[in-house]
């Protein structure tokens, strides 16, 4: 039962253009969403987050949009740079009692072409 889905295994974008990575979820009770970035042979690094009470959060070149009615979020990178080439994971916060768990998507590999 995949509660967080990233349906595009890979995405190729020209340098300088906008990269849009998508994520869908099934549980309307998720309270928080995060994006992580992963380079080969390294662990994921936190990129940006958004609370379920917001519809947009921006941090420099990175913006995350949340559409709760569609259970969909997206990460926009503008402009895309070669260093953005990595695997991007979407994750949702699931609260359990007094603890929480991250529910991860399978990741999307972003390739920025020069």
């Amino acid at each position: 039962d995949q509660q967080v889905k990233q349906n595009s295994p890979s995405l190729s974008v020209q340098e300088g253009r906008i990269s849009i990575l998508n994520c869908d979820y099934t549980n309307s009770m998720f309270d928080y969403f995060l994006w992580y970035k992963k380079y080969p042979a390294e662990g994921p690094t936190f990129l940006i987050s958004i609370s379920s009470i917001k519809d947009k959060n921006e941090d420099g070149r990175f913006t995350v949009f949340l559409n709760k009615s569609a259970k969909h979020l997206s990460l926009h990178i503008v402009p895309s740079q070669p260093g953005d080439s990595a695997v991007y994971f979407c994750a949702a916060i699931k609260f359990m009692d007094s603890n929480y768990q991250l529910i991860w998507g399978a990741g999307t590999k972003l390739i920025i072409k020069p």
Partner: protein
Amino acid sequence: EAGVAQSPRYKIIEKRQSVAFWCNPISGHATLYWYQQILGQGPKLLIQFQNNGVVDDSQLPKDRFSAERLKGVDSTLKIQPAKLEDSAVYLCASSRATWGRRAYEQYFGPGTRLTVT
């Protein structure tokens, strides 16, 4: 601040052998996680510690996997005996114990790539 340290970085073993991984979290981070990441999938939580107590180990295959966190700092994850399907990257992460937005941000080590033949 120093990041999450893991060792070894790579390990190749035969099935039915044993293996252990070590993790040193970021100083001051009370919460520590072990994840298993199979190629093409997102990380899967195996166990979560709060200080030296287990908070969640519901997805840990306890017949072969074990983990401990001595003195609430370093942690080891052991597999005994290993199976072919255990081939994966094992990631350790840590986060701040306090509640709130930044408590959700987990900091990951580079991982240990395990190959079981």
